[in-house]
Each structure stands twice: as structure tokens, then as C-alpha cells.
């Protein structure tokens, strides 16, 4: 009988540390680093989210700053997606989800009774993990938001919004001759840029991105990253990513989540060169993930 691969417990080269189970964090943990921003758009304070009995995120405090990109990193199931889905109340669509704490947008509590989710989501746009253009034309995809919110006075206005949004999303030159073709017929990277164009057509204050490049190839990813860098001049951006390199490339601030707790926040350069918490260091050096 032939030899098979050695068991996982066998010693391996030091350059690839063994992958370990995700370590636990003690109760009542306080975030390392400064979670505030000098020019905050959104501020989350003591945010808890439960999915049924599952305490998904615990007492998270974090600011989203104007004209900057904040990257949310952490192992799978750490609550980073849950957190950004609180920021535009997309968690409301999950029946078992309960949110407590306070999240403000320009000083207004978004979970207050008078706050309308439709209004909120027009101001806090979202780009999803998998490109999800509507099965309509490229034009209609971008025009949908302005149409339902009544942003354009007439057709010419709408045309201009569509064009500006596509230009800003870096897609205009590729699609200007095929605006009437279905958005689902574009390539994956183009679809994701179309989704970004669709989001910025509403001119939100904040753009949330939930792993926007995880379904894309490296070239398409690079284009999206360039785009994110440009967009931060006009918008506050929060991006969830599994790629440490991506976080380092596009963000100014980084927040490390672990098992529902925000472990460490800081300037991206500091986090990646000089992490203060052991878990952060272990995660970014690939000791678990």
C-alpha cells in the first residue's frame, strides 16, 4: 500500500504556522485603541446584536469618518458583516435579529422611532458581496434609486445622474454604448462596479461594502480598489474584507473584530505594522483565520 500524506499534527516548516482554533476573548473586554474619528459621520455606541439567542456582536463602539475608508477585518463569524448591516438597518430584514445600543448618522439616532429606514438607506448605501445587478438594463439599474426617490426632475436630469454615476464608478467608457443591454450580461467586475454606480447614483453619505471583491478576479479587484480610493473623496466608506492586503491598501483606519467583539481599532499603518493586541497580531500574521 502506498504512503499517504502525514497527519496534520506532524511538524511542518516554521514559515507556515499551524492553523489553530479561534481563541476566546474574556467577558467585558474593552477595545484597544481609539475608536473615535475626528470627523465622524456615523457613530456606533454600545451596539449589541442578537440573532435569536446568539449574541452576534457585543458592546461595539466605532466611528465611521468622513472622507476615509475604514476596513473591518476578522475571522469568519466575528460579526463584522453584522456590524455594517446595522449601519443601514439591513438586519431589520432578518426576523430573529435584535439590535440595541445607539447608532447615529449626523447625530441622529438611526434606530429612533421617527427614523425611516427608507430615508436611512438612501443616505447609507450598500454594496454586497456577490454582484447583484437587477435583471434590467444598465441604465435602469443606475436610474432605479434616483427614480424611486424622485431625485431627477426630468429625463435629461436622470440621464445626467446615470452618466455621472457610471463615470464615477469607472464604468462609463465600457458601457456607454450598451446602456440598454441587461446589467446581468456584464462581467463580474463590471457588475460590481455597476452596483457601486447604482449606489452612488442616490448620492449617499456613507457607502457600506460587504466583501465587495470576494467574487472577483485580481484584475477586477484592483479596479474596485482604485475606485474605492477615489470615492473616499466624496463619501465615507466602510468595507468588510477578508484580505489583509486589501485592508492595508485601501483603508485609512482598520477595526479588528473577534467573536463579536471589537478587539482593536487604529490607523491602518499602525495596526499592520505594530498591532497592540495579541489576537490582532496573530490574525494579521495568519496564525488563525
Amino acid at each position, binding site marked *: *500500500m502506498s*504512503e*499517504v500524506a502525514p497527519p496534520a499534527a506532524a511538524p511542518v516548516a516554521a514559515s507556515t504556522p499551524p492553523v489553530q482554533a479561534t481563541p476566546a476573548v474574556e467577558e467585558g473586554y474593552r477595545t484597544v485603541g481609539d475608536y473615535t474619528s475626528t470627523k465622524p459621520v456615523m457613530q456606533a455606541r454600545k451596539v449589541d446584536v442578537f440573532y435569536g439567542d446568539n449574541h452576534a456582536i457585543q458592546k461595539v463602539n466605532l466611528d465611521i469618518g468622513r472622507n476615509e475608508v475604514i476596513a473591518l477585518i476578522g475571522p469568519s463569524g466575528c460579526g463584522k458583516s453584522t456590524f455594517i448591516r446595522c449601519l*443601514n438597518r*439591513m438586519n431589520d*430584514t432578518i*426576523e430573529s435579529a435584535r439590535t440595541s445600543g445607539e447608532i447615529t448618522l449626523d447625530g441622529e439616532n438611526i434606530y429612533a422611532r421617527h427614523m425611516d429606514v*427608507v*430615508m*436611512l*438607506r*438612501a443616505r447609507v*448605501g*450598500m454594496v*454586497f458581496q*456577490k454582484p*447583484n*445587478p*437587477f*435583471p434590467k438594463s444598465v441604465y435602469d439599474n443606475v436610474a*432605479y*434609486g434616483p427614480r*424611486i*426617490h424622485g431625485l431627477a426632475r426630468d429625463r435629461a436630469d436622470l440621464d445626467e445622474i446615470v452618466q455621472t454615476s457610471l463615470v464615477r464608478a469607472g464604468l462609463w467608457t465600457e458601457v456607454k454604448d450598451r446602456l440598454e443591454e441587461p446589467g*446581468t450580461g456584464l462581467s463580474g467586475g463590471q457588475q460590481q462596479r455597476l*452596483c457601486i454606480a*447604482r*449606489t452612488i447614483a*442616490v448620492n449617499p453619505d456613507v457607502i457600506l461594502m460587504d466583501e465587495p471583491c470576494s467574487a472577483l478576479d485580481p484584475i477586477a479587484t484592483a479596479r474596485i480598489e482604485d475606485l474605492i480610493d477615489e470615492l473616499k473623496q466624496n463619501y465615507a466608506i466602510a468595507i468588510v474584507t477578508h484580505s489583509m492586503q486589501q485592508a492595508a491598501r485601501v483603508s485609512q483606519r482598520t477595526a479588528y473584530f473577534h467573536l463579536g467583539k471589537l478587539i482593536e481599532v487604529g490607523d491602518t499603518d499602525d495596526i499592520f505594522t505594530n498591532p497592540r493586541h495579541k489576537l490582532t497580531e496573530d490574525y494579521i500574521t495568519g496564525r488563525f483565520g
Partner: protein
Amino acid sequence: MSSQPGRSVKEAVAQGIGRRYRNERIFKALGLAALLIGLGFLAFFFYTLIANGYTAFRQTRFLLDVELKADVIDPRSSRDPVTLATADYQSLVRDALRARFPDVTSRGELRSLFALVSPGAGLDLRALVAREPNAIGGTRALWLVADDDVDVMVKGHVRRDVPEIDRRLDDQQVGWLTELEEQSRVALKFNRYFFVGGDSRDPELAGIWSATVGSFFMLLVTLGLSFPLGVATAIYLEEFAPRNRWTDLVEVNINNLAAVPSIVFGLLGLALFINIFGLPRSAPLVGGLVLSLMTLPVIIIASRAALTAVPPSIREAALGLGASKMQMVLHHVLPLAMPGMLTGTIIGMARALGESAPLLMIGMVAFIVDVPESPLSPATALPVQVYLWADSPERAFVERTSAAIVVLLLFLLVMNAAAILLRKRFEQRY
């Protein structure tokens, strides 16, 4: 690993592999056999139906020289439509027969001679006169419709050489028929009555038009009620209703309703719509209401399945842009789910079209000669017409029953084909 207990992989696989392939072959053969048996039954079914039914599309007619006597049709030359409509045209037919067989004189013989021609012949003459009043006074060579007893004999369904007691035409009538045939005055012509007529005691005049119109009105009511209600229910349950014990209960009961025998819905319709609400009996409106009860669960279940099949990413995209839930449903989810909903609806409608049991309960089994004018007039439906004819003793109704089934199946085929086309046409990849 050499320390692994048991046999080597190669040995073990080699030993079992023949058995695995054999099992696969047996399974495939069984599946194929089941399919072939099913197709065989279907072929037999269609063969018997069509073999029995195709003769109904033609009927026997006699070529007779009919004198359209002015003193019978319009004695005062008034050309008044009422006078023209009420004249005794059948007597003109009788005179034409008498002229063809001058030897027949006794009353009894004359009666059996006249029995060769259908009472519909006079009606055809009336229609001719109404169409061309100038024909009055002249003589026309006309193909007049024969009695059903003649028809079945000409078509060979009843043989002439059986003893006289075993057939409806006596030897004398067969003799006259043979004489007419020798003069080439008997022929099989297209059976117009079958398509434009209502039910009749005379099989040669009976048709499916009134039943078709009855079925049409009924389906109209069913579609108008069950489609909007079903789709709205599905949207509410799938998109808006909270998931709790009540909605679970509703869901279970909808699934149960789909399995309730249709006759029970018929009894419910009788008790509720006719006895309590006082709606008319035998009306397509009530039939449509009853069939709606039956079709609703089918549409709800199909529509919910269609809604569930719309990927959540589309919903998230719409909500993420700030669409309200209603906008999300109307702009994105519903258009994507619509082909599936329509497919389910058409299949539900096809089932409703073929349903007869509940209609028996609400009096749509009546003998209806006239074509219904509205969903409130008394009517019958195609499958009930089949049931009525299948129950009739006349030999000529056998082929009409089969022919009516063929027509009903054609309608069902068209509807199901439409459902398939719709699904193919609008199949979206997202």
C-alpha cells in the same frame, strides 16, 4: 497507510464494481420500462379516442331537390321576418322526399320515410331563407342533414345485414337509403352542428358550442377571482407575514385545501353560493366560484414557490437602495416571479377546465340547448357535456363523446403548451 486495517482499496473496489454497474443498469432499465408502459397507455388512450371520435366531425347528408314554396313560407308575400321564421319548413323537406319516392303513399310508410331526415333539415332551410329571401318560390338542390340512425348506418357503425329487430332502421328504410345511395344522393359532409350547436336530443344536431361557452365563462370567473387573490395571498405570506404559529397554520391549511376532493368543493358551493347567497343554479358564475376555491390553493402554492425562487440578493439590492418593501416586491420580485406564477395559474386553470364532479353538485349537469349569454345564464361545461353524452343511449353519441373529449384535450394541450412556452420565454438567469 500500510497500517490501515482491512483489504486494499484496489481489491475492494474491483470486487464491488461489477455489482455497482449491474445495479445501475437494472435501475435504468426499470425506469425506461416504466416510461414505455406509461407511453403505451397514453398511445392506446389517444388511439381509442381518435378512432372513435374522428367520424363525428362528418355527418351524413341527403341531396334533395327542395321546392321553396311561397304559399308555405310566406303566403302573403310580406317578407316579414317573424312569418319567415315561423313557417313550416319541415313540410317542404317532407314534400321533397315524397317527390323523390312517389310510390310511398300510406301514412305509416310515409312516417318512416320522413324519419330518414333530421328535424334539423327544416332549420337549415329556415336559415337559408333568412339569408336569401329571394330563394322563395324557386327549387334548390340541397344537402339536408340525415337522421342519426341513418348516419351510424352509413358510417358502418351499425351493419345492414343484422336482423331487422337488432337495428333502428327497418328493411324498408334501408331499401330507401340504398336507393338514394345508388343515385349518389348520400354523402358524408363536414359536421357543422358539432361545433356551432348546443346539446340536443337528436345526436345529429348536438354540438359542443354551448358547453364551450359555458366553460369559457366559468374559467373567466375562476381566473378573475383566483389569480389576483392567489397572487396577493402568496405575496403577503411570503414577503410580509411574520413567521409564527398562525401563519404556519394558514400554510398547512392551504396545502390541505389543495388535496380536498373536488366534489367537496361542489357541495360547499351548493350550500354556500346557492342555498345561502341565493345565486342561480346551473350558472357559470357559481361554477367559477367553486372552481376558484379549488384552484386558489394551487395558485398560492405555485406563486409562493415562484417568489421563493427569486434570489435574496435582488431583494437586498432593492432594500439597500432605499426601496420600500412594497417597491421591492412590485418592481423586482414580482416581475421575476411572474412567469412561475402564470405557469402555476395556467396549470390550475387546465385542472379547472377538466373538472366535472363539483359542477354536478351545483346543477351544471342540466340539458342546455341554448348558448349561454352571460355567466348568469344556465350553462354546462365541456367535461359535463362529455359525461352527459357518455350516458346517452343513442349509438351516435358514442362518437360525439369521443370527439368532445378530443376537443377538451386540445384545449388542455394548448393551455399546457402555453405554460411551457411562457416558462421558456421568460426564464431569467440572475
